[in-house]
């Protein structure tokens, strides 16, 4: 069952290359159906959809073992939902190719989230870098961005590979995700260092974030909504699936380091977001800040914080995807994303402004939306975990978040109208449909965060 989640999008993506290059309808319809199917399948299927086949028996045992359970189910659903929305919103030169890449990205990341084998996890970790790389060389305006994305992340993938090999040798098997015990011994910190480097580059965390702003700014909106919304959570998922179960003791030993990195990311991301003028870069730096909060939660060693982290991961995935998609709509209409050159769009485009406002309010943590639920539970957990000062410092960026999110909202949709901007159509039905599921999910999870809390109980 879980194998279908992986194979279906990848095969569909490959098949789309045989559809005429100029086609839009078939590509988007196929993409939407596949993405919807991958969303519904785990919900209606019973059990964890396990599939296992022996892969290696030496030098360590490894299996092609897929399945979803607990935490990974939520990553799977988030991925399917954001792919669905991204596919619907894809509307550009060569839509077909973009949809195909999106489906391949979905398939590879499904593999990552459903892998129950560390080696399989490492395999999909590298594989998921390829579709965004092609999106960057196909649509991006700077080639260096594609290089920076690929080399940073592949270097991280290589440390992951080395760590996986060492893990396999020490542990005897890599078919252990979801059913393991702590790795002990003098090798454990070294192995975890390899994993942690990969996870922290992907998230990203200061000072390993330098590939991120340019990548997010340069990638087309449909792709970046998935990359920022879901792919950036791969590292955090790694903490859930590999870091905490196998290296909990190492994490506890390195807590100060993680807390410091997380707090710097939180503050640094928020401060830089305040100074940026490119809408996508503001959201990119806000991601750095928000994900820093999650790293803080995951390394705090407190169960409540873990629950908050899971909620916030889903919430951030939803609102950052929505923000990037809507910024994409704005850019498509006005041919710019510099907020200084925009203004007063809300008057002529009330629906666009309304959709953006919901996503923006979730980003700044308005009670009633999913972002708030995540933040408050994380802070409670971090506080209970004995990290009083970090919890207190983490409040500052949350206040700063209000400033930069409101500035974004204000400069684009409110305020005086910039005179030389042409009048454009409001949010169309298709575009609205593409973001509506994300916004609906934000509201639903804001009201019923218990849906997610139960997972980790």
């Amino acid at each position: 069952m879980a194998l279908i989640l992986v194979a279906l999008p990848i095969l569909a993506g490959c098949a789309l290359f045989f559809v005429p290059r100029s086609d839009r309808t078939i590509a988007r319809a196929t993409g939407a159906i596949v993405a919807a199917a991958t969303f519904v399948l785990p919900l209606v299927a019973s059990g964890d959809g396990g599939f296992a086949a022996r892969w290696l028996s030496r030098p360590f045992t490894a299996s092609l073992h897929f399945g979803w359970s607990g935490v990974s189910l939520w990553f799977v659903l988030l991925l399917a939902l954001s792919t669905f929305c991204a596919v619907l919103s894809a509307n550009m030169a060569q839509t077909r190719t973009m949809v195909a890449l999106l489906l391949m990205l979905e398939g590879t990341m499904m593999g990552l989230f459903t892998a129950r084998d560390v080696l399989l996890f490492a395999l999909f970790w590298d594989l998921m870098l390829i579709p965004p790389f092609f999106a960057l060389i196909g649509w991006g305006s700077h080639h260096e961005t594609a290089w920076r994305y690929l080399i940073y992340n592949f270097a991280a993938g290589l440390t992951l590979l080395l760590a996986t090999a060492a893990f396999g040798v020490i542990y005897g098997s890599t078919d252990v995700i979801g059913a393991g015990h702590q790795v002990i011994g003098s090798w454990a910190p070294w192995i975890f260092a390899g994993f942690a480097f990969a996870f922290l580059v992907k998230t990203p965390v200061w000072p390993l974030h330098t590939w991120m702003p340019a990548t997010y700014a340069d990638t087309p909106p449909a792709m970046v909504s998935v990359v920022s919304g879901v792919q950036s959570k791969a590292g955090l998922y790694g903490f859930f699936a590999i870091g905490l179960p196998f290296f909990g003791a190492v994490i506890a030993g390195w807590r100060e380091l993680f807390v410091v990195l997380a707090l710097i990311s939180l503050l640094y991301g928020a401060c830089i977001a305040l100074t940026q003028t490119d809408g996508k870069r503001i959201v990119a730096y806000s991601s750095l800040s928000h994900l820093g909060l999650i790293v803080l939660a995951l390394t705090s060693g407190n169960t409540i914080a873990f629950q908050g982290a899971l909620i916030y991961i889903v919430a951030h995935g939803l609102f950052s995807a929505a923000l990037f998609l809507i910024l994409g709509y704005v850019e498509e209409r006005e041919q710019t994303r510099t907020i200084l050159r925009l203004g007063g769009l809300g008057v002529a485009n009330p629906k666009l402004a309304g959709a953006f406002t919901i996503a923006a309010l979730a980003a700044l943590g308005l009670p009633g939306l999913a972002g708030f639920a995540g933040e408050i539970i994380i802070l409670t957990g971090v506080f209970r975990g004995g990290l009083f000062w970090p919890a207190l410092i983490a409040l500052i960026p949350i206040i700063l978040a209000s400033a930069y999110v409101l500035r974004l909202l204000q400069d684009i949709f409110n305020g005086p109208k910039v005179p030389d901007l042409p009048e454009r159509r409001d949010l169309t039905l298709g575009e609205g449909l593409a973001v509506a599921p994300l916004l609906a999910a934000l509201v639903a999870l804001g009201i019923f965060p218990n849906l997610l809390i139960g997972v980790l109980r």
Partner: protein
Amino acid sequence: MIGVNLFTQNDWSAVLPLFIVACSALVVLLADFVWRGRTSAQIAIAIGVAALLAGGITAGLEYGRAYDAFGGGFVLGGFAVVFQEIIVLAALFSLAIYRTSMSEEKTSGAVALLLWATAGAMLMAGAANLMTIFLGLELLSLALYCLCGLANRPTSREAALKYLILSSTASGFLLFGMALLFGASGSVTLSSLASPALLTDPLYWMGGGLFLIGISFKLSLIPFHVWTPDVYEGAPLPVTAYMTVVTKAATLAVFARFAYAAIPPGAQYPLLIPFYLIAGVSMIGGNLGMLAQTDMKRLLAFSGIAQVGYIVAALAGATAQGMRYAIYYLVAYTFMNLGAFAIVALISGKNEEGSRLESFRGLAARRPLLAAAMTFFLLALAGFPPTAGFLGKILILATDITAGYAWLAGLLIAGTAISLYAYFKVVRLMYERPPVDAAPAAAPLPLAYVTVAICAVAVVLMTFYPLTPSNILPLTR
């Protein structure tokens, strides 16, 4: 007492595969007397393919049999058979792209030389005494000197001369080392070199050192690699493709047999550690060298230097497991590398090789499937999943960590990180917009398409069904 029955039928049947290959070369030359021109070329290739298939099949039938032929000069066993199959496979794939860059009247001679070279390499795969090793090596090298000079351009002759001079020098090292080893042990068989009495003999250490220097030359490990890019660039494309796999596979077979079976207990580490260091340097240096290249053949030459470094790293510590993974990676490398070469052949014009990197620009728009396949092979060489290059690296890393050579694992990772940029430079060129329009009319090479397909499928299948041969050791008795 030398009698008529010194060699039995078993001895001859052990070397039957390479006899088939070597004798078919004569048939190719005879056929050239009868037919001329295009027909002659086609018949030569057909005979070559048939001979290699026959050789490969007869070799495969011997798998599972263990026999010391010619008084231990040629040891038949799983190891020899596996390496012979790799060599035959590589020869077949390079025959499939034989029609590029060589005029038709030269084809018969080229095919004959290629078959002789293959026979030499197959001999090296099973050679277990110093004489047979040298015999096989010279047969391989002499044929290759001629093959390198066959392209219709001055650089080809330059390549042949360079290869002749430098490779002869390397053979000199090897031969001198062999002489000293013989002087120390009083025997030419490899197994007699494993005697602990040799540990105190300075002749043995000098001989072993010189032998390994010769091997490093032939494997083109850094710093003995300087001839490689120039020779690969000048040689005709199919010959380059052939050399990247066959010379390396045959020399690796010799090295593996030496490292596993011909070293006294206790000398393993001090004698071989410089060699593993050289392999480590090659992983870094080979990949760094790739960065500056503008020619695909040179790029793949440097890539090969690094990839051989990975394979040698698998042999570090001389474990049974390491041997299996070295073979696994060698097979993977054969498919990845020759797949890439087949694509270079497919984008070549009638008289011009498409090996300049510029000829890859915009390939995705012109020939999307070829570009996709090339991307796949380059990703595989870089170690991206889901390819055998990825799994092979994991297996080598695990072996090195188990055998206590974690530093080699670290160097492998560092080298791979560097290689990424070079491989992706080509990928980026292929997908660059806007594509250039003028592309040379491609030579019809149906066999090359088959090669690409086989290589691609094999690289994926090997990832998910990682079979490694089990009856490899011991290498000598």
